[in-house]
């Protein structure tokens, strides 16, 4: 009994820490899923947009001395533009030729390698720490300590995802995105300009890349090799079901919490082994994830 009472705070602390990182995973996974839902392929270049956004936020704060709000805005707009350009440069011509998804995947990988190496070559491989934002960085709630920044990130993630959910269900453009994700050529027959719509979806996903890039940078610093962590977006999206927004959110939080439990209760070196095993497990046993559309429905 005594032992249980003593251990409960650790479990609660682990849960809180897990939710904090899960919120960022959810943000990343949402952007990722948004692109998957409309083009039906895994855009591995998305992780690099997140990495670049993290640098944008870093330069905005350290270089230009901007506050967190303006820096977030800069990173979001910059990432939206980068994501949009990613589509125009790497995928739009494949799309017009109706190339199979494999070609998109290869183009995405090429784009990733290019962007990562470009950062190595121009900015360098250093780890760049964001300036400290709070004099006292942590907060105590019910015995668990949580970073103020983590709390802010979590609240902001939930807000951003709610806003996206509202947008996608209640606006003309949002409904068009959902319709086109089901049957793009029918959407065109209803007057949707696919070029325009897909550009918008990439820009929208870019906004989410911008947010998560800054949050990741504050938590883990900005550096070119961030791909190991942006890959978590893919894992979270697969767990939730590729292309499903509620799935991406659930997958993100679930992955964050499970991972943190593994690193606290087993070993932190096992954390990524666990995450990637989970990915393989889902891909093999449950490829449509927790909330995913069944494969028949996708066709």
């Amino acid at each position, binding site marked *: 009994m005594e032992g249980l009472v003593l251990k409960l705070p650790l479990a609660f602390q682990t849960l809180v820490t897990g939710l904090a990182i899960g919120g960022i995973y959810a943000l990343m996974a949402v952007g990722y899923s948004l692109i998957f839902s409309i083009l039906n392929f895994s855009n591995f270049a998305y992780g690099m947009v997140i990495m670049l956004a993290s640098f944008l936020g870093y330069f905005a704060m350290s270089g230009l001395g901007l506050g967190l709000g303006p820096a977030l805005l800069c990173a979001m707009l910059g990432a939206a533009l980068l994501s949009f350009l990613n589509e125009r440069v790497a995928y739009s011509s494949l799309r017009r030729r109706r190339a199979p998804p494999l070609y998109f995947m290869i183009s995405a990988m090429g784009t990733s390698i290019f962007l990562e190496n470009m950062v190595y070559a121009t900015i360098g491989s250093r780890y760049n720490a964001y300036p400290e934002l709070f004099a006292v960085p942590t907060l105590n709630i019910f015995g668990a300590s949580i970073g103020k920044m983590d709390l802010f990130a979590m609240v902001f993630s939930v807000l951003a995802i709610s806003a996206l959910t509202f947008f996608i269900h209640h606006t*003309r453009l949002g409904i068009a995105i959902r*319709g086109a994700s089901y049957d793009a050529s029918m959407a065109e*027959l209803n*007057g949707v300009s696919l070029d325009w719509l897909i550009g918008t979806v990439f820009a929208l996903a870019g906004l989410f890349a911008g947010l998560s890039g800054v949050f990741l940078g504050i938590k883990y610093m900005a550096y070119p090799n961030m791909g190991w962590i942006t890959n978590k977006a893919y894992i979270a999206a697969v767990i939730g079901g590729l292309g499903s927004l509620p799935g991406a959110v659930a997958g993100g939080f679930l992955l964050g919490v499970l991972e943190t439990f593994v690193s606290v209760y087993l070993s932190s070196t096992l954390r990524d082994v666990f995450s990637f095993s989970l990915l393989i497990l889902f891909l093999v046993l449950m490829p449509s994830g927790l909330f995913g559309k069944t494969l028949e429905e996708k066709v």
Partner: protein
Amino acid sequence: MLDVDCISVCYGQIRALRRVSLKVPRGSVVSLVGANGAGKSTLMMTIAGALRPTEGRIAFDGRPLPAGPHRVVAAGISLVPERRRLYANLTVRENLLMGAHLRRDREGIHADIDRLCGLFPILKERFSQYAGTLSGGEQQMVAIARGLMSRPALLLMDEPSLGLAPLITRQVFSIIADLRRQGTTILLAEQNAHQSLEISDYAYVLESGEVVLEGSGQVLLNDVRMQESYLGIRKKNGRPVR
């Protein structure tokens, strides 16, 4: 209003339409009759802008048809596609809104939704239900309503009676007759030759991608070749036998 002039359409090596010409005058119902694989859907998709002819021209209201389906809708042509193709992941209401995608007049859109709910009571009953959960007949009503939401000057309907029970089919044809009375111009592709010829001003018969016969609905109904091939009427001793 619509003037299709000598178009050919290919899928890779396969030529699905050969030098097809047809005209749809304003305010009329024109039907397109033909067996499976004759090229009806190909022609519909081409007029809707989803396929490009390799030769020939299509003019709408005296102007060349714009390139790209979304521009064709903007020009006033709307397609109710074969097999309905509703957005199964959207509600009935959202499917109708997709049909109105290019319109910005909120009030007009809502007025049209109300009007269509009057025309198809099933829409109101299933308003917030996902379209994927509706029966085939219900889906067809939604598909027709969605096609009308853009307020098209020309409505293309590709086999609206496909897979429907005879009673529902009759309902669909009476809706087409209603639409015509309200002044909508319609190009109708049908295997159900008898019913479509009865409500048509003019009809074309497609066979292996070519127009083999054309004429007014009444003339084709009485045509011997038509009766043998499409109307299921064989002549014995000069008298029609069903």
